[in-house]
């Protein structure tokens, strides 16, 4: 059965509506959302309410957590002072806009979802803030999948969609106690079945070089993953950004396919607050 996975909506209503229309047109009726419903974008309440009205199972993203906890969007991971100032402005604006009911909804979201061998998280099984980039060291990436007990791990957070497959993976353990002599070692080898990481990209703040919203459709029967790119009315969102009083460069960056804030130099950074 095919199901759709979307992530990183970032309060971009026009993009979310276009993606949901695309999913409906394809006749896919199971949808999972990987969080970051809000943050940077101009329509946080509208996006949260649309997700709620569609009954889409959703896990909590880093922005969803930060808005509720007042953590100010993990300022320790901002790559520049400019990004931090803009991020703080967006954070305070979003926090002021969100209704109490929608904040309660975001606070209630689980950190992960599981369906059979499929595990859904925002960043990684370790943290909403950890980036699983496509070129992450293979052992570390595989460890994230195995530790979550997943055959297929769906994540977002990087805003760049990708499918990464681990074939013929194995882990060898050799254990020797401190008081044991030479040769008294226990060994264990685990041959791992094919595992995958699927990054759903971003609906509201694409980072693939274009302006199209991205999400993925996984067909379990056919064992396929399709990365979908959906055009939407970018100008509508840009107008809403300016009308909301958010930083005008947000509109310019969205219009040109640039992320709102540049990426952190250390993508593996995890906030340890």
């Amino acid at each position, binding site marked *: 059965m095919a199901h759709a996975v979307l992530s990183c909506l970032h309060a971009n209503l026009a993009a979310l509506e276009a993606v949901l229309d695309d999913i409906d047109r394809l006749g896919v009726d199971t949808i999972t959302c990987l969080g970051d419903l809000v943050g940077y974008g101009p329509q946080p309440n509208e996006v949260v309410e649309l997700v709620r009205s569609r009954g889409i199972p959703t896990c909590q993203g880093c922005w969803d957590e930060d808005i509720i906890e007042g953590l100010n969007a993990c300022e320790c991971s901002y790559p*520049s*002072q*400019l*990004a931090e100032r803009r991020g703080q402005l967006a954070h305070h604006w979003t926090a002021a806009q969100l209704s109490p009911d929608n904040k309660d909804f975001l606070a209630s979201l689980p950190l992960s979802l599981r369906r059979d061998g499929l595990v859904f998280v925002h960043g990684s099984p370790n943290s909403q803030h950890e980036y699983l980039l496509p070129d992450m060291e293979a052992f570390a990436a595989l460890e994230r999948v195995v530790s979550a007990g997943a055959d297929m791990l769906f994540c977002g957070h990087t805003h760049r969609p990708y499918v990464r497959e681990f074939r013929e993976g194995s882990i060898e353990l050799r254990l020797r106690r401190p008081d044991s002599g030479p040769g008294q070692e226990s060994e264990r080898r685990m041959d791992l079945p094919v595992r995958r990481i699927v990054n759903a990209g971003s609906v509201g703040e694409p980072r693939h070089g274009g302006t199209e919203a991205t999400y993925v459709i996984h067909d379990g029967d056919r064992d396929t993953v399709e990365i979908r790119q959906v055009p939407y009315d970018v100008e509508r969102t840009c107008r809403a950004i300016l009308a909301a009083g958010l*930083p*005008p460069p947000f509109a310019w960056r969205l219009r*040109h396919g640039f992320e709102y804030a540049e990426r952190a130099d250390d993508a593996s950074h995890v906030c340890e607050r």
Partner: protein
Amino acid sequence: MRGVVLVSGPPGCGKTSWILSRLQEHRGPRVYRRLEGVDPEGRPLALDGGLDQAFLHDQIPDLRELADGSQDPAPEAEGLLALIELPLFGPEIPETLALGLRPDRHLHFGRDSELPRQDTLVFGALDSWSLDLVTEVWDPASVNSFWFELVNGAYGDVYRAKALVNLPDGRGFLFNWMVSCSGTQFLPLRSVAPPHGRPMRLSRLVVQGKGLDTAGLQTTIADCLISDAVLELQQAPRRSQGEPLPATG
């Protein structure tokens, strides 16, 4: 090359870079003067704010400057090279422009073959905007983002942008960008500011373009400039450890 040479050309044609090369290779007294150009058709000439002059003096510490255009350097020391820079679209010097000096030669970009051939812009009516940034220090990652936005049109259609920026480690850079050229020149200054408070050398941003969002520019720049406290945090370790200043140039 010797003598007094007037070097003219339109904005962005490479006058300053060419002049720097000639002055650097000259063994003898070196003199530089930048004149303000006048265009008969009223087109804006390079709004510079002293950036080129400051950069040349940084690169050539013993460079002498003519106090004013009326001073004739020709009778001075033998082997002298005096280069006079004049922003000018066409090769004809307008009668309204009083040079006040007698150059031995006049070289014009686009006319004289010994100058490099470079595309130059034909500027129409452009807005010019300049911001004094003396004593200001940029967050390095932020200035990178800002410059990317600036030259890619986030604050209007920018045709030319030039800046002398200070970084927290004491280094300074000349940023030079022109819409007709690929990429920005990031040229390091030779001088490094000491880790004691704010740098006092000339620092400025000049922008020419159409529909410039000057309020947006100022808002973003304010978010890129670091506070006294942040600057002190970055300078203190260099003072206490006696760390050698980073080499530039």
